[in-house]
């Protein structure tokens, strides 16, 4: 993060040094207190609770060591959910970036109606999770969904398919919906960066007879790289922790077909009443998140270094 350009010590000229300190504390405390109580402490409490058996009715806690973790790691459902989480994260982010890079380069061209197109391409990012689920459920509905009708009109299928009734197809369509909603975010980030690509470099390369692909590969792409890495990190984390879209799509079903790790936590805690194992799953999820962010941060530092 950038350092503040101004030395705060400058204020000591006004001989407010002591009162400044208390004013600062006063100004920071209310926000800090809320964050502590409603974000930091719950996280710690959650980690702590993962070592306890918790009675669902009374919320009474009994220490049981690593039993929750052992129970969890023995369950095939946990490993299946982890696998589905990986499939969900990798496929959505990869396609988002392929589409996102393409669309942002397209929207960077001098085409008529470009601004209007920019505005409209970003629309899906606005759509709340519950509306996303309504939209796609409606389009994919077996009896009156427009998608089935279209496939039948084109003669591709003879009778309607219950897309969300099949575990594999349901996961596929959650992935498609995720791609649909979040590609605009990638476009937004990359477009901002494209505005500041040094034009001289591109033109010099053009004069030297470089092809469009060579210019992209050797000038535009390296310039985009730091933003791509940051956006990739954000998208990976956000997709990994994404609950609303996946859950609301088909409530984790059918046959757990769309149960990713966050949906598994919800299922364990609120349907199976297994609060301890739910806490253990949360802890493992945090661990994975930490590992991913650490990996990306070192990659980001390398990408920044290569540019300078």
């Amino acid at each position, binding site marked *: 993060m950038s350092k503040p350009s*101004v030395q705060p010590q400058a204020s000591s000229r006004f001989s407010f040094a002591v009162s400044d300190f208390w004013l600062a504390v006063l100004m920071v405390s209310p926000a800090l207190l809320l964050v502590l109580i*409603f974000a930091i402490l719950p996280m710690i409490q959650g980690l702590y609770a993962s070592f306890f058996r918790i009675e669902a009715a009374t919320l009474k806690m009994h220490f049981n060591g690593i039993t929750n973790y052992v129970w969890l790691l023995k369950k095939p459902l946990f490993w299946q959910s982890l696998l589905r989480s990986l499939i969900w994260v990798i496929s959505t982010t990869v396609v988002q970036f392929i589409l996102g890079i393409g669309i942002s380069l397209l929207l960077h061209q001098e085409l008529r109606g470009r601004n209007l197109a920019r505005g409209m391409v970003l629309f899906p990012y606005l759509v709340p999770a519950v509306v996303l689920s309504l939209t796609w459920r409606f389009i994919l509905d077996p009896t009156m969904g427009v998608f089935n009708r279209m496939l039948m009109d084109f003669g591709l299928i003879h009778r309607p398919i219950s897309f969300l009734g099949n575990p594999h197809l349901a996961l596929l369509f959650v992935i498609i919906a995720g791609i649909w909603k979040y590609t605009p975010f990638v476009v937004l980030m990359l477009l901002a960066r494209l505005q500041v690509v040094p034009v001289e470099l591109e033109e010099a390369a053009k004069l030297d007879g470089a092809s469009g692909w060579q210019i992209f590969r050797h000038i535009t792409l390296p310039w985009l790289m730091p933003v791509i890495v940051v956006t990739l990190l954000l998208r990976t984390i956000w997709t990994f922790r994404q609950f609303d879209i996946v859950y609301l799509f088909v409530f984790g079903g059918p046959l757990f077909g769309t149960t990713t790790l966050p949906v598994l936590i919800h299922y364990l805690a609120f349907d199976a009443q297994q609060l301890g194992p739910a806490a253990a799953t949360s802890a493992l999820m945090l661990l994975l998140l930490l590992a991913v962010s650490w990996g990306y941060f070192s990659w980001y530092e390398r990408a920044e270094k290569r540019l300078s």
Partner: protein
Amino acid sequence: MSSSFSGASQTLFTSSAILLRLRRDLHRLILYLLLILAVTWAILPLLWVFISSIKPDSETYAFTQTFIPLHPTLQNYVTLFKVTRFGTWMKNSALLATETTIAVLALSATAAYAMSRFRYRYFELLGRMTLMAYMMPPIVLVIPLFFLLFHMKLVNSHIGLFLVYTGTRVPVGLWMLRSYFQGIPVALEEAAMTDGATRFQAFYKVILPQAFPGLMSTGIFVFSVTWQEFLFASILIFSASKQMLSAGVATFLSEDWIYSWGVLMAAGVMISLPLVLFYAFLQRYLIAGWGTGAVKG
């Protein structure tokens, strides 16, 4: 002989020029086709939701569907507000999102100002902590939060949900506003303070107006995410009359009695409406918010 030769090279030259122009035109044509494809992919599903919300059931459930409604009607919207609790949920969400936005702005603006102007070692630690809080998956927090509210006797209450929303949104507000305040020159307050203003007056009267665009984008961002919040509301609230929008509408999906697609599509349009309006009129602030909120977070 020579003239016919030069004539041939002339035609050769022009035909290659035509070919070149043809290639360029084709290139542009492909670009426009791709542009149309991208726009269609982005808005067609939403357009379909809107169209279906103003179609009578007879057309929604007809065997051959038309893209343009034959008999547009607002009947679905009337049913939505008269028969279901949608109106109540909308009021709850509007109220709670407004309260949360005001609280988050007030708390994070003061804290972000202090963090950008005074450099004490533990403020750095604070910055890291808020970043960590921002990264925390809500699903990990929701169970402990349920415990916490349970012990505070604030489960199923708007006060409890308000505290949770504010506590979990303040880190975003802090991140967005801190970088904004850092961009405002300290000379501004110093001038005010040499003129006799206190530090707090300088913050309140000089810096806050300067930070208006930053406050605006932070405010819109916080309002939008709270307006559509699903998880916390669905767990921490259980009376239908106290429910929030997304969690309320989600109950339609698990109850078959209201599986009337026209009404559901009307609900979808109504939930999205404020966000679309913000986007249409305040795009500048909104996109700035997405950018900073995302990059810094």
